[in-house]
């Protein structure tokens, strides 16, 4: 067996507590992020079985999914949502788990606050009962989403029983054209590999275009790895990563910082390490992307067209395209730029960070929403919101006609009352264009923040690069 190891191999092998006879491994988990939707069954079962949380210091909880983004501080009106939120607060108190309270400035989407607080660090294993846990792989850690049973397993034992996934490498080389973002890159990658392209694998993203991304851009890329079927995406930590982590509340300090740096620098994949699957993309060929269907793989460049089911490779694809076009109320061969929108949503764990707020404000500056379009901007955390307000971004967006909301998952999953009405069409910076995801019979087109704002200004999709000129 080759001694040349990938980044994934190194993290995996340094976290194996025991190899089981059946080929699974008992894997140690360094950090466990949690929220209100998927944690209650675990706490309930542990209470019934009189089991403690093994390492409360390795858990961080925050409410985000069901939280209203207006009238923060008032009683949550929806009874179920309120009870679920209150259950998280009570469980954290009972089990001594650190919780960022709703009214704390640090509150936000779990995948935004992990990095902000320094809980997300290179080389660690990190899990959360949420599929977009893949986000944290941007720091060169092994981060993946788990179900509620596994949440309980981690709370009780600080480990998980896992089958080792395979290595996949996605290389993106060259310079992204001006105005093209990490969001466009990951949508193009998913378009290339398909929504099951990474199933059973961990994807490592490499190449000059990846290295050139900010941490925000890298998090956007890793975030949507799950939309390509892989539970985890990884980008090796480098100076960009270290500069982001340094000084954050939970990051290593003083003498520990230098020891951590030495360790982190030993983790990138060895030259010549083997991958089970490889894909390459040319960054210079990527244009701003817009999804047209009901799966994230249904994507086209802004100058492209809606596909024609008649041209599909087989009946299965033909049916899938036709079903998507029927749901989305689109016609075969329709230019993407002709699609008119009713709503725009800027936010989510995919695009709710400060760089996304800046990109949105830059396009919105001095412009106004098209007639009939409504749009909201939901910062990913209280700290993102405060930073944006310090830079005056909120004023620019509000002047252009956008609503400026309080942080949470909001209309990415539409559990908190922020949702599309039947038939409404939305330019969304979130991660899933599944049927009904943003509201029953709502139609979601996934785009970057700049493209969402440009569509909201023009009333239809438009190449933001042309708008800028």
């Amino acid at each position, binding site marked *: 067996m080759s001694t040349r190891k990938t980044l994934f191999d190194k993290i995996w092998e340094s976290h194996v*507590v*025991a190899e*089981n006879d*059946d*080929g699974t491994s*008992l894997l*140690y988990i360094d950090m466990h992020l949690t929220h209100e*939707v*998927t944690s*209650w*069954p675990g706490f309930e079962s542990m209470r019934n079985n009189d089991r403690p949380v*093994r390492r409360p*210091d*390795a858990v961080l909880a925050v409410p985000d*999914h*069901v939280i209203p983004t207006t009238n923060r501080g008032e009683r949550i009106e*929806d009874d*179920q949502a309120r009870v679920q939120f209150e*259950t998280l607060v009570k469980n954290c108190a009972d089990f001594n788990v650190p919780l960022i309270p709703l009214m704390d400035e640090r509150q936000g989407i779990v995948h935004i606050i992990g990095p902000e607080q320094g809980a997300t*660090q290179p080389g*660690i294993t990190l899990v959360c*009962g*949420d*599929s977009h846990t893949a986000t944290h792989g941007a720091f060169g850690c092994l981060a993946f*989403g*788990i*179900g*509620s*049973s596994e949440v*309980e397993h981690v709370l009780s*034992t600080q*480990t998980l*029983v896992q*089958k080792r996934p395979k290595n996949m490498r996605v290389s993106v080389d060259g310079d992204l054209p001006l105005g093209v973002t990490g969001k466009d890159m990951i949508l193009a990658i998913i378009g290339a590999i398909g*929504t*099951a392209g990474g*199933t*059973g694998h961990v994807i490592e993203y490499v190449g000059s275009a990846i290295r050139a991304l900010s941490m925000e851009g890298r998090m956007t890329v890793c975030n949507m790895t*799950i939309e390509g*079927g*892989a*539970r985890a995406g990884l980008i090796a930590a480098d100076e960009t990563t270290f500069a982001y982590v340094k000084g954050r509340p939970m*990051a290593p300090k003083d003498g520990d910082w230098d020891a*951590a740096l030495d*360790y982190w620098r030993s983790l990138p994949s060895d030259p010549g390490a083997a991958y089970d699957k490889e894909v390459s993309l040319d960054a210079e060929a990527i244009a701003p992307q817009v999804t047209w269907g009901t*799966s994230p*793989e249904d994507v086209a460049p802004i100058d492209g067209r809606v596909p024609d089911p008649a041209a599909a490779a087989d009946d*299965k694809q033909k*049916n*899938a395209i036709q*079903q998507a076009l029927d749901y989305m109320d689109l016609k075969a061969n329709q230019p993407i730029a002709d699609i008119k929108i009713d709503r725009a949503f800027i936010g989510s764990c995919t695009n709710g960070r400060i760089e996304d707020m800046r990109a949105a404000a830059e396009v919105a500056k001095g412009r106004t929403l098209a007639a009939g379009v409504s749009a909201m901007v939901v910062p990913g955390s209280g700290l993102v919101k405060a930073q944006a307000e310090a830079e005056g971004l909120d004023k620019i967006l509000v002047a252009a006609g956008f609503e400026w909301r309080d942080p949470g998952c909001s209309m990415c*999953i*539409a*559990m908190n009352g922020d949702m599309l009405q039947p038939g409404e069409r939305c330019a969304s910076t979130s991660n*899933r264009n*599944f*049927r*009904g995801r943003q509201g*029953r*019979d709502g139609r979601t087109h996934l785009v970057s923040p700049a493209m969402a704002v440009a569509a909201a200004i023009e009333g239809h999709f438009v190449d933001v690069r042309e708008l800028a000129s």
Partner: protein
Amino acid sequence: MKKFTTLSGPAAPLPMINVDTDQIIPKQYLSAITRAGLGKGLFHDFRYDMEDKEKPDFVLNREPYRNAKILIAGDNFACGSSREHAPWSLDDFGIRCVIAPGFADIFFNNCTKNGLLLIVLEEAKVNELMALADNPQACEMAVDLEAQTITLADGATVTFEIEASRKHRLLNGLDDIEITLQKGAEIGAFEAKQKAALPWLYR
């Protein structure tokens, strides 16, 4: 955890690829703090119209599929979110076995934790079973996990592969947490070693 040994009953066909977990159980069922009644929400938007009335065309609203025990699905079934409500809702409806060419990774693990059997078969074989399931006279199937067989209405059998670890867990209804808690000493030893090397991870 519930054991899975044998299961027989109608198999319902769902000939769509990339059915995501939002289709299996939508968001409005995720804010409760109970698993009870999730079967009603299974495939909600396919099953009910905007007035919450059943859509008569959808397979689970037709006989004999109202009592389906097995689901035959397209590739990449249950992609998307980690919500364990997806297996819970299938289980609550009465479906404890899904047969497809492929499943999403998180859903796969969640099913094993809940005693649901997922069977991966080649696409051509899934298509054959899909055609049989589509015929109410031929849709009865019987799954035997120990023997790794699916017996069809005409008595023919289809065999399937399964990893030894998953088979063992399902047949015996093993609770991973109980088993792992017995390895407390090994976990403690790992922690002591890691704490010495990477002390900042212990707060």
